[in-house]
């Protein structure tokens, strides 16, 4: 009797399970109907068989007559508020350059309609939902490629995700990847997947120009660094150190508080006192930006703006609590410059965003609704916009052919015209970009701390004059070392006054 009961239960359980399996498997088969099936099976085999990558070229030619675009966004984790921005960036690019329209004027997540380049439609097959971790983004990208059959993927958003997606790209040569705004060096420098393109800068690039200005213009001889102890903190630091030391400065101490630190006082205490060093470079993000600064004030003395510089986390929008004392500090660049930079192309771009959507819930407004141009002017949306424009340009180049080989070779040779500066790629398919350096100032009218652009560093590439390469270690707590080196852009900084580059 007991036998019958327990076994009966398991029988039911097993049958339900089996049924679910069959239903799921079959449902999936339908979705995967030819021609996608061949593609996706090959793609999957390649996961473990990267060496055979070349075999698949002929298969890929057989019938791609549309772009099935997947977007890797981020809807959870620290950047979860920027999910809408990612899709909006791509959609706006297609609205502006591929004749698309958006179905909704208050959300970007509905995608677009009618995007077409030379007769080739661009369809959105899915939006991946990352949470700032590589594991999750790998699951999402696999779903886009292997289930939704995407042949082009735009994304991801953050650095470590970028490494994971680039590795995945290496194993799936038939899919074309355009980085969203992932700010790590490795995806292009180290992994070098031939089908992974990055039309934006990264953590080190965005701090180019700071060292030159601080040493040669502000007269800093020595500096101390405090940065988050993870890859973006390390990469930001690497860009600063490479240049500051490169032009003759000396970094006397580097402090790396772990992520999740609540009380920064013990780490601040490790920094030299303000009279022992000419300045400090900060690359602490999240709650840490303000908490670490306040711990500094508590222990070392009031902030004097000209003794500080920071990476993009010194953005008053990201760290809304930055007080007026910090005014005078230099701030590294990001994909897009602060709002004071004015050029016709930029006005046009921002206006197009406002025309497309009435308002968007955007991360930069803390998830509140804001004008679409507010999102568009910030780097996250702009990075995805750049990728979208590059895709359209690449397709235009191939005459609308989205097959991997022509599209990827077209993308590699592009120089994309973008509102905040044209972007070409280096040999590793990473963007050579213009970096805008800004200072924090107190706005006369509102009394708020704002960013004021002071210089434009043209054509920064990620090797930093050979400091970083495929053979060098990844940026870490002690790499790169502090030594003099030649950087191609030193001395070429273009001053920016009142938002207008002086050239």
């Amino acid at each position, binding site marked *: 009797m007991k036998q019958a009961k327990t076994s009966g239960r398991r029988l039911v359980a097993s049958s339900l399970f089996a049924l679910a399996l069959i239903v799921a498997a079959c449902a999936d088969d339908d979705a995967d109907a030819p021609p996608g099936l061949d593609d996706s099976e090959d793609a999957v085999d390649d996961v473990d068989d990267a060496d055979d990558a070349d075999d698949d070229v002929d298969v890929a030619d057989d019938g791609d007559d549309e772009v099935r675009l997947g977007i890797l966004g981020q809807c959870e984790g620290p950047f979860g508020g920027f999910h809408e921005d990612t899709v909006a960036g791509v959609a706006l690019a297609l609205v502006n350059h591929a004749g698309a329209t958006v179905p909704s004027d208050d959300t970007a997540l509905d995608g677009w309609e009618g995007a077409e380049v030379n007769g080739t439609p661009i369809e959105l097959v899915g939006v991946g939902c990352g949470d700032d971790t590589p594991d999750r983004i790998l699951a999402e990208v696999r779903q886009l490629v292997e289930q939704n059959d995407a042949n082009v993927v735009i994304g991801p958003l953050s650095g470590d995700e970028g490494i994971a997606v680039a590795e995945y790209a290496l194993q799936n040569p038939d899919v074309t990847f355009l980085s969203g705004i992932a700010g790590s060096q490795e995806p292009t420098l180290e992994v070098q997947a031939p089908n992974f393109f990055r039309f934006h800068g990264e953590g080190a690039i965005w701090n180019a120009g700071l060292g030159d200005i601080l040493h040669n213009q502000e007269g800093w001889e020595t500096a101390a660094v405090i940065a988050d102890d993870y890859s973006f903190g390390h990469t930001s630091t690497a860009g600063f150190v490479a240049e500051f030391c490169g032009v003759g400065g000396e970094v006397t101490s580097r402090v790396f508080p772990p992520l999740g630190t609540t009380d920064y006082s013990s780490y601040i205490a490790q920094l030299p006192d303000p009279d022992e060093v000419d300045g400090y470079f900060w690359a602490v993000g*999240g709650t840490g930006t303000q908490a670490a600064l306040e711990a500094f004030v508590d222990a070392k003395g009031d902030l004097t703006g000209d003794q500080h510089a920071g990476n993009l986390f010194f953005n008053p929008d990201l760290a809304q609590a930055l007080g007026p004392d910090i005014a005078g500090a230099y701030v590294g660049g990001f994909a897009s410059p602060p709002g004071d930079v004015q050029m016709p192309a930029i006005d046009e771009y921002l206006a197009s965003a406002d025309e497309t959507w009435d308002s968007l819930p955007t991360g930069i407004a803390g998830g509140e609704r804001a004008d679409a141009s507010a999102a568009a002017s910030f780097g996250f949306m702009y990075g995805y916009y750049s990728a979208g424009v590059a895709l359209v340009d690449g397709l235009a180049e191939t005459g609308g052919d989205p097959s991997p080989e022509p599209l990827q070779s077209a993308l590699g040779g592009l120089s994309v015209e973008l509102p905040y500066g044209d972007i070409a790629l280096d040999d590793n398919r990473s963007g050579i970009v213009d970096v805008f350096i800004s200072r924090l100032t107190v706005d006369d009218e509102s009394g708020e701390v704002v960013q004021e652009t002071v210089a434009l560093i043209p054509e920064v590439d990620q090797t930093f004059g050979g400091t970083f390469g495929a053979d060098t270690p990844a940026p870490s707590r002690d790499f790169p070392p502090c030594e003099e080196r030649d950087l191609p852009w030193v001395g070429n900084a273009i001053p920016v006054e009142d938002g207008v580059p002086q050239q």
Partner: protein
Amino acid sequence: MSTAVGQAPQAGDGTADSKRSVVYALPKAVAYAAAAFVVVWVLFIAGDSPAGPAVSNPGRFVVTLLDAITFAGLLFVVASGFTLIFGLMRTVNMAHGSLFLLAAFVAINVQHAMLGKSRNIVADEVGILDWVVPMLVGALVAACVGLILQQLFLRWNQGQELRQALITLAITVIMADQMLNHFGGLALRMTWPGSVTHFIEILGQRYATTRLFMLAVAVLVGALLWLWLNRTRMGLVIRAGVDDETMVRALGINITFVFAVTFFVGAFLAGIGGAMGASFAGAATGSDGDWLLNSLVVVIIGGLGSIKGAVAGSLLYGMVIAFAPAYLPSRYSFYAIILTFVLLAVVLAVRPYGLFGRPA
């Protein structure tokens, strides 16, 4: 009839003359030796550490000690609510961190509303009321949400500890997602009142009075908690309930009401901690997990259910957090966070239920 089967282990401490005592004396001896070594290290050796030995840099030592104690104050406020709820109801409220973060977000928004601006707030603009009112509002919201959770999800399964823990874990997942949706992912911050934002000199080191203010608030909270538990009838019932739940039932006291009040107070304390934490370190997505973890570490060290334990746990944990980065050799100072584990291991090896804990 049985007075107590399996009482607290301390009963065995007195007997020395057997193999068994030796076995359990060993971890104890190791723990004491380790503690002594740490003290000697910090005071006299501390070679190659960022701070240097205390005898040669007393200012730094005193400041580090103050850092430890002031941060412990914040830890205590957060953890005391957690341990109070557990002590009376045996409910491990995994949503404690979520209540902390919710209160933090609410308090920040209230403060912004009161000041009429949300950025570039300087302390001088913040009156004491601009800080206290948001804190109380935030804490009240957390307390009400906590009470609702308790009434909806926990009241009817009292005693099923793990089920309750898992229920509150699920609530944590939902609340985190909803807070991300409503408050965004950016780091926000509450500003200390200007009247407490000053700096003093301690042995040549600058020190912020906001940290001392935080400690003062914590002491105040602790004192009120003590008065409530020791000087009121309900406190008496709660303390009796902590010791023996059946006895309280037998006395015919309306335990459901006491439970509700206790949960309310516990969540309120999480909320006070949230407002303080938002002023001290800011609040953002993910802070909930950090603070749940902080509470867990404190109560595991101190002993679940014991307010005394929460004090001791906060102090010890605060010490490790403040001293480890400063007094580890520079080469290893990145591993400071791992010392938390060493602390836990040492405490658990000697007292499996924490310093002041009793077996469930």
